[in-house]
């Protein structure tokens, strides 16, 4: 009986304690700076080196480049850049290998959509996704 009484005392003492839950959808969740959320892409920084597409463990990045419009400059610039968030596991490897920090992680994590098609994010979308970028990657 002593154990039962102790347990009852413990729950009763918690009755008046402060709640520990957060009011998530009403109050946005603040994630730490390193949090790996949806990527932000800077098209102007990209040198089309293909490293992100190569390192991606799930092959969810697809990109194509085109020759630099200024004939005087060498190299390529980005043409299309798509991430398929149906299979992206947000492992952060793409941003780790990127030599110019053209792709970086943000703190945004809300990816729920009504249709699978909307999970297919293209260059324009990824470029516009520019809030909550990690401090170390701020442009």
């Amino acid at each position, binding site marked *: 009986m002593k154990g*039962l009484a102790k*347990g*009852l005392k*413990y*729950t*009763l003492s*918690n*009755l*008046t*304690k*402060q*709640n*520990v*839950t957060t009011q998530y959808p009403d109050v946005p969740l603040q994630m730490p700076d390193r949090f790996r959320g949806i990527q932000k892409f800077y098209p102007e920084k990209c040198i089309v080196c293909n490293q992100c597409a190569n390192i991606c463990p799930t092959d969810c990045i697809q990109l194509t480049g085109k020759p630099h419009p200024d004939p005087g400059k060498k190299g390529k610039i980005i043409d299309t850049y798509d991430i398929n968030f149906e299979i992206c596991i947000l492992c952060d490897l793409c941003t780790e290998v990127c030599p110019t920090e053209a792709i970086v992680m943000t703190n945004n994590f809300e990816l729920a959509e009504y249709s699978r098609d909307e999970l297919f994010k293209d260059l324009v979308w990824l470029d516009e996704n520019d809030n909550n970028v990690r401090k170390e990657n701020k442009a």
Partner: protein
Amino acid sequence: MVNDLLTSPAGWIHAAIFFGLGACLLMIVLGFVTYAILAERKVLGFMQLRPGPNRVGGRFGLLQTVADVLKLLIKEDTIPKAADKPLFILAPVLAFAPAFMVLAAIPFSNHLKFSDLSIGLLYYIAISGITTVGILMAGWASNNKYSLLGGMRSAAQMISYEIPLVISVVGVIMFSGSLNLTEIVEGQKTVAYMFLSPLGFIVFLISSIAELNRTPFDLPEAESELVAGYHVEYSGFRWAFFMLTEYVYLFAMAALTTVLFLGGWNPVPFLGCIPGIVWFALKFSLIVFFMIWVRGTMPRLRADQLMEFAWKVLLPVALLNIFVSAVVKELFLR
């Protein structure tokens, strides 16, 4: 007023008045159920460091249960193909009807009562036994193995715990010399029976939790073992009826405990200025809170331990209580 009505000859007008009063009580009980569920969720929530329902009906979630019931009402009514259809439909009714019938016998205050049965206590216990049949029927008719197990457990449990429950009140009956619930309350004018037969009170409280199928005796619907027990195949409003049964019984059982052991509407000494109904409500809420509190703390017993506990611990203690009560009556209440 009610006392006059109860003693006056029968007639159509009286029948109509009683019908009206009965309907009022029904509404009050439904109101209680609505807020008992909310209170349970809130208290559990606070104990578990979370706010509980807080979205529908303002910060305190006052309309949460209403929304839940509304949702259950408009839900599709499904009956499994392999179920025994007539029994499946009958079971919730059979489980629910006695829950309301027992309320008729309970006096809430000196003036507020709906009957004055001389065998009120016996009536309560006899009628509440019918619910077991409803639950067993639900378990069987669903044609589901989990609900069958749940129904069987439930029948075994409720029958076993009815015995210590009844025997534990024998002490009270001896003190008051009556089965009439009003007279039992009147007998507690000076001292509540929980002090005269503490053993009986404890046995009654434990057995009543078991009768109500609440934690730690919630084996019939143990969600981690039997998924939901006897009502696993029920949905929508039929399911709501089982839930309603459970909470109406919570109401009835808490009221009965108040009447039998806590002195009903008798005030605590020196505070007689507060009306009886308030005292009743206070004592009643205390019992309900205790049940919620226990639910927030205890794990569940195992079926065989449950049976052992009823037959090997509660029953002997209840029998001992009869003896002790007789001694107490002989020594102090002459």
